[in-house]
């Protein structure tokens, strides 16, 4: 301590004063805990006190005392994290430790040291009772370490394809490729953040292509003793080397790679240098598969969503810069940053989509059993065929889809498929067939459940729904999805707890933002088709403007964009309609609905933009000012305070920071169908 020129006596006195106070508080709290073992305040207080004591005594070189305090701190850390209970014997051991601390401090105050004190036995007791490990918990020797380290050293770590393209792009821009090696000093503990300091500095001024070990996902700390970084830059070497001027970083070596070496690097594919690849794979045993908390995934997903916004902002910034003459170098940098960001976010989105996606097999796997059991019960002979079970869907969709799908299948078995006798009479094969298929089609997941049974009784449906002749058979059968269509009497308890296809449809439309339709022929079987968006939160939308404000309409709800003129509108009393392919579609003036009636509302003018949106319940032609653009939007939930009329299904932030609301087309159509916006 004197090496740093401190007044030892003064320090010691201050330390002792603090320590006395600390001990007194510690004792009080321990006594409190004896009476009330679960008291969280006391537990936290003891934890804090032992933590402080640990730090302070270490500072003055009282290592035994510090260690003892450290062990106590560990014990209380586990207690407060609920991993440990304060049993009688443990409490006794803690008191022994506390007494020992007291003794040590007395000795120190008498001018002695703590080195002669035997703390081993007390610590041993604590360890036994508290189940503490001896030092650090993780102790598997990473044997593959040397193999990988040498692979990196000799520069033989293969590049991933996007890294390879980074090298090529860098060369195109006239940059040089460097390999930087650094060593983290022995006494640096932990090593990873030390190395991270350098990595962070480098990232700010150069383009880091590859690091070994991986800097973005921390691995075993011991691996970070030696770091190798592959980077590109057009800065002078001194500048790059300056990024390594971090404390406890040693032996920085920066070398420029010549064409020969670069070619070698680029040609390092999976074939050649297999041993390095195998070695690098085995060294990462601990980190290849990780159990991830779904909440964390959601957090990351949110972050990716934000990144998408910033990426867009950056590219807009670049556009703005491009239009000006000056700032060539800044422009270049922005372009580079923009490219990197673009690349990274795309990769991230895909990677994360990957972690969120599960094969739909997890859902389908229970159906063979279900079909077998049910068909046996019903005395029917049914075969199930599943296709596309490897199709990937978002995890969150799986849970919500399970019930509706199960219900559809039960329905098929119960009502759709006939008994063997009836099938024979109808000249059908005795074995009935149900097929479930899933595939990705144009940015959506399409799931179809088909059976070759009776098909739907169109006549019954028409009667029940009160449908007139102008509705075709194909459209009539869709009415099974209308709310309230099925009643308790229709449904046997095999098909589920008295619910029908209308509830299934609601789940799919509202909870999953999907669509469902049915195709059926009398005697020829039934096909139910479900369309789901790939993910729940990124929506391909059309941005429109209305009275200077911007809104978005999900493209999946849009039937067509049209031009509305006086010629193709029909007026009936107070209602306006748009003539769409010979049919009357209610016309909705968005400005009046959202902002209140305006003066211009009355006349239509020459030509107006209309967006025909469609949901099962019906169609509406929404009158807007401009069709601005089509975009993939990250949808965020909307605060109730902003949505008291519930006209919006979410809100999003555009690339330029503008905030726009997403129209809830289903709700809008519902309002129109039930008589209009008055009073809403």
């Amino acid at each position, binding site marked *: 301590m004197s090496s740093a020129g401190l007044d030892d006596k003064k320090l010691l006195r201050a330390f002792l004063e603090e320590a006395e106070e600390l001990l007194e508080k510690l004792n009080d709290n321990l006594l409190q805990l004896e009476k009330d073992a679960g008291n969280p305040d006391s537990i936290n207080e003891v934890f804090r006190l032992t933590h402080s004591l640990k730090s302070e005594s270490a500072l003055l070189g009282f290592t035994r005392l510090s260690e003892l305090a450290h062990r106590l701190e560990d014990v209380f850390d586990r207690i407060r994290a609920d991993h440990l209970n304060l049993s009688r014997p443990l409490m006794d051991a803690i008191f022994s430790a506390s007494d020992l601390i007291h003794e040590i401090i007395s000795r120190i105050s008498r001018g002695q040291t703590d080195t002669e004190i035997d703390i081993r036995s007390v610590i041993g007791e604590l360890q036994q009772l508290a189940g503490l490990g001896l030092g650090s918990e993780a102790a598997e020797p990473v044997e593959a370490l040397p193999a990988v380290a040498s692979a990196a050293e000799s520069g033989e770590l293969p590049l991933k394809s996007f890294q390879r393209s980074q090298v090529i792009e860098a060369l195109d821009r006239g940059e040089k490729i460097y390999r930087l090696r650094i060593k983290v000093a022995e006494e640096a503990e932990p090593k990873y953040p030390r190395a991270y*300091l350098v990595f962070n500095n480098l990232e700010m001024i150069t383009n880091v292509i590859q690091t070994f070990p991986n800097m973005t996902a921390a691995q075993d700390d011991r691996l970070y003793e030696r770091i190798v970084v592959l980077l590109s830059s057009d800065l002078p070497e001194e500048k790059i080397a300056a990024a390594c001027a971090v404390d406890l970083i040693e032996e920085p070596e920066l070398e420029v790679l010549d064409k020969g070496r670069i070619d070698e690097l680029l040609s390092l594919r999976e074939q050649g240098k297999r041993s390095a690849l195998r070695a690098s794979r085995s060294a990462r045993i601990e980190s290849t598969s990780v159990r991830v908390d779904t909440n964390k995934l959601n957090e990351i997903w949110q972050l990716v969503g934000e990144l998408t916004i910033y990426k867009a902002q950056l590219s807009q910034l670049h556009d703005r810069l491009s239009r000006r003459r000056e700032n060539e170098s800044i422009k270049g940098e922005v372009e580079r940053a923009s490219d990197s960001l673009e690349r990274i976010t795309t990769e991230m989105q895909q990677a994360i989509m990957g972690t969120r996606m599960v094969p739909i097999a997890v859902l389908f796997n229970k159906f063979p059993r279900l079909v077998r059991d049910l068909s046996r019960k019903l005395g029917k002979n049914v075969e199930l065929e599943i296709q596309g079970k490897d199709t990937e869907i978002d995890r969150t969709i799986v849970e919500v889809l399970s019930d509706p799908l199960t219900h559809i299948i039960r329905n098929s078995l119960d009502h759709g498929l006939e008994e063997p006798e009836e099938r024979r009479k109808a000249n059908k094969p005795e074995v009935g067939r149900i097929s479930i298929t899933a595939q990705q089609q144009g940015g959506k997941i399409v799931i179809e459940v088909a059976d070759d049974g009776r098909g739907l009784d169109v006549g019954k449906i028409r009667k029940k729904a009160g449908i007139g002749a102008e509705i075709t058979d194909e459209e009539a059968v869709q009415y099974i999805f209308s709310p309230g269509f099925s009643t308790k009497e229709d449904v046997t308890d095999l098909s589920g707890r008295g619910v029908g296809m209308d509830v299934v449809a609601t789940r799919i439309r509202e909870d999953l933002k999907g669509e469902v339709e049915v195709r059926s022929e009398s005697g020829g079987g039934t096909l139910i088709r479900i369309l789901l968006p790939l993910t729940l939160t990124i929506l391909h939308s059309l941005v429109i403007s209305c009275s200077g404000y911007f809104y978005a309409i999900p493209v999946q709800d849009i039937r067509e964009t049209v031009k509305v003129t006086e010629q193709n509108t029909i007026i009936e009393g107070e209602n306006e309609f748009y003539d769409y392919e010979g049919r009357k579609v209610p016309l909705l003036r968005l400005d009046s609905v959202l902002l209140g009636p305006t003066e211009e509302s009355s006349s239509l003018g020459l030509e107006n933009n209309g967006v025909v949106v469609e949901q099962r319940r019906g169609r509406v032609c929404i009158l807007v000012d401009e069709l601005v653009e089509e975009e993939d939007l990250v949808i965020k939930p909307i605060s109730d305070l902003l949505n008291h009329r519930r006209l919006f299904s979410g809100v999003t932030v555009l690339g330029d920071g503008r905030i726009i609301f997403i129209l809830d087309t289903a709700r809008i159509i519902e309002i129109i169908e039930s008589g209009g916006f008055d009073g809403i």
Partner: protein
Amino acid sequence: MAFKVLLADDLYFMRMVQKEVLESKGFQIVGEASTGTEALAKYQELRPDIVILDITMPEMNGLEAMKRIFASDPDAKIIICSAIGQQSLIVDAINSGIKDFIVKPFKPERLLSAINKALTE
């Protein structure tokens, strides 16, 4: 001219030791804070050349204070003090822009070399 340092740590003793170490080498301690809130306020009031900030402080914890200091002054120089095993916090802090970090318990020499390196760039 002496460099101005702001010390932020909830332990009086810690601050005293740091003060001793730094003042003996010619640094000027212009202020001390014992909570994150105080650290932020004093930073804005005193505008020191560098801040030594403990991230284990309770009540507007050190990390929050660090972020707010950076928000108010992107060029702020901050060295954080952390406990062992707070790796992700340290990385978070590095991403926010700290110059260096020291792990407690630390030796005075470490504090000095870190602060010297951070101030002479």
